[in-house]
């Protein structure tokens, strides 16, 4: 199975991971159409 981007869906969780893993956050505002 092809890999996919493992999106977070909540800002607080993303920032907690960013601090823990010392990474930046890519925030994508999308239109589901």
């Amino acid at each position, binding site marked *: 199975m092809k890999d996919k981007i493992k999106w977070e869906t909540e*800002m607080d969780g993303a*920032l907690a991971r*960013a601090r823990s893993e010392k990474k*930046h956050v*890519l*925030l994508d*505002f*999308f239109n589901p159409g």
Partner: protein
Amino acid sequence: MDAVTYPDSKVVNFINENLIPLQVQFDAQPLASDFHIKWTPTLITLDADGREHHRTVGYLAPDEMIPSLLLGMGKSCFENERFDEATTYLEKILADYPKSDSAPEALYLRGVCRYKNTHDPKPLKEAYEQLRDEYPSNEWTKRAYPYRLL
């Protein structure tokens, strides 16, 4: 983005290995208001404190996506005064994606990082000269134009 760029294996691997990807709907509150979202796709690079450092609006092809993300990470480090780390990201753009739309800004910003580290103006002049030679009509070449006099 979902049809072409996000399924691209290089993009998937880069994002999963180097960033925390967060996807929210364009009208999700309070984030949509906090970030003044008016169009999609809007992609924003945040530091771990949630501060914005880089934004693109509109579609990015796979071969522009990774250098744009590297530029966002580099700008975040630059604006947090981590100049060596910023330089590493910027040099990755120049080495691996020299024809990308992000490359001229990366070249400009690398010169600024080098200046910030040394207080020697020579890297600023070198940045202008390289921009003039490699990207003669780019906006970042125009922004660097005064450095020719250093």
